[in-house]
């Protein structure tokens, strides 16, 4: 038990350090641009005068910005404050409703796509030469070639559906639709690979319960697929939110881009990084649980 806790603790420590490293690198990238440095300098002068040295912001050493970075991280993690907008609002509101909205859209879209793709793959694997099944799968595939833009365009201007409950459903469908083709494709490749393994033939020859035996390998490739598709769906959410005018991270990002609100961009970056990091950790844990096969190192 103690050993297990220690191992899990080490895992989370490693993962946390990775997260910190990624955020630091992102901040370093932010600092390359002089415009952003100016914005941050203005913010420091206004809100954290203790950190600001004298003189023109243009001549400040880079160390000041890094000091601000740690100050900002401390504020974020210990006081729950992510800095202030020009109108005095705390930027932590981004982690509330907008973040929830984006996450919900992405997760439901992904769940829909994965479920539908699994169903389609199951149908096609079970009845490989039934015409209606192949028509169904092919029509879904053709439809999922339609990108978010076109899908949302159809919905917006064709069906004129912009009221909340239905619109949200359609957003989810649009999002899932975008990755459906990919998921079907990847899943089918993996399952075909499993079908050609010797152990699958052994299971068949023994007349064993195939669902029980294939739960782990198929679960393993499903988690991998979901993990690789998650950032894609997240990116898609941003476009869809903008097109459908949903108040969420996507819309906020576009506004920040237009208004050159750099601190807001930084906060959004950190939020997205945390989400993707959590998905990485979950994927790792799932792999850990599901795959008992050994790895040989030379």
């Amino acid at each position: 038990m103690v050993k297990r806790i220690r191992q899990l603790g080490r895992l989370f420590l490693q993962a946390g350090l990775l997260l910190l490293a990624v955020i630091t690198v992102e901040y370093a990238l932010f600092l390359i641009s002089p415009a952003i440095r100016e914005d941050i300098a203005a913010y420091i002068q206004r809100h954290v005068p203790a950190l600001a040295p004298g003189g023109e912001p243009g001549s400040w050493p880079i160390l000041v910005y890094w000091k601000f970075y740690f100050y900002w991280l401390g504020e974020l993690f210990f006081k729950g404050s992510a800095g202030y907008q020009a109108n005095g609002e705390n930027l932590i509101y981004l982690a509330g409703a907008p973040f929830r909205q984006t996450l919900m859209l992405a997760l439901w879209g992904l769940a829909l796509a994965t479920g539908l793709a699994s169903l389609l793959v199951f149908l096609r694997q079970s009845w490989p030469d039934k015409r209606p099944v192949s028509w169904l799968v092919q029509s879904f595939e053709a439809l999922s070639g339609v990108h978010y833009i076109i899908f949302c365009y159809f919905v917006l201007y064709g069906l004129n559906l912009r009221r909340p409950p239905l619109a949200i459903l359609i957003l989810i469908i649009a999002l899932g639709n975008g990755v459906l083709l990919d998921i079907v494709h990847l899943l089918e490749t993996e399952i075909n690979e499993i079908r050609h393994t010797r152990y699958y033939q052994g299971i068949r020859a023994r007349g064993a319960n195939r669902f029980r035996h294939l739960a782990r390998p198929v679960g393993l490739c499903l988690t991998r697929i979901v993990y690789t598709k998650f950032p894609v769906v997240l990116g898609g959410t941003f476009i869809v939110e903008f097109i459908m005018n949903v108040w969420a991270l996507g819309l906020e990002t576009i506004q920040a881009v237009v208004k050159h609100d750099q601190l807001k961009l930084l906060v959004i970056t950190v939020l997205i990084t945390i989400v993707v990091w959590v998905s990485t950790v979950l994927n790792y844990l799932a792999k850990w649980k599901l795959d008992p096969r050994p790895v040989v190192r030379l």
Partner: protein
Amino acid sequence: MQPVIEVQNLSKNFTIRYREDWRVYTYSKQAVRNVSFSVFPGEILAIVGESGSGKTTLGKMMVNLVRPSSGQILLNGQPVQRLSQRRFQPLRHLIQMVFQNPYASLNPMMTVREHLEEALRLADVTDPHAIEQEIQQLTQLVKLSPQVLTEYPDQLSGGECRRVNLARILARRPRILILDEPVASLDFAIKQIIVDLLLELHQKLGLTYIWISHDLEIVQAVAHRILVMFDGEILEEIPRDGSRRDGCGHPYTEILFTAAHRLHTWEQEDFSTLGAVLPQPTAGTTMASRERGCRFRSFCQRYRTIGRPKLCRETPPRFKTVSQNHLVRCHFPWIENPEVTPK
């Protein structure tokens, strides 16, 4: 005579990691432990053992594909175990390896001719006329029919594929060949033909062979010297035809001989003594690996017959010379020997 290969105290550890119940287990498996032997020019040295006894790893270490954990390999007196691939490159014309799975070692999208041309270009034959001639010679050497040259590896039969591999490797004109299970999983007829071919090449080209196999019956017929490996360790070194003449030997070799002999004769015999060698599970590793004493003792009929002596349990055995050039790593190479009767 100067040995072409000298292996001294060679060991190889693999680290194996697996996850189970939210826990990560790591253990080190010693595939080859403290192996020393030497190979003399023109010799056929056989290495015999079960699968998982480290034969293939040993072969790969000699052609610098696996880096040894410790120990030394001298090739013509030159230590090679620490050489990088590039430094080892000039030695590749000296020593070559034929791999176990002939189909996997050929590129399925290249014809046999392309394979041979590629190998010849490595041997600095660049003139197209010379290449054509060399290909002719090689196909004659390994007795391939010329129409095979235009075919792809997956159109070949198992025997043909092995010959193509052999031709490809012979194009580099090696002096030493490491044959990793050259006739395993072949049918009787083709097995015999390939063995004949290999022996003919050995005669004609004056090659040195290191013949890795699990079948004592074949090896006994062809080899000059046999090393018996078990769990990464050499248990016995048998000189040519010296196997049973002096009546001594390691109990493991005895089991191997009995099994091979009984499988290759028609008499309906019972195999009940062989139940002892069936491998049993132990923690971490797949094969039994005792920390102290003789590693083999849990499978050893002789150990049980002579009343589980303390010597076997406490001390790891060393090589004993039982007759000329015949070394056995056993405390009791011959149990009727009055000197070593247990107290």
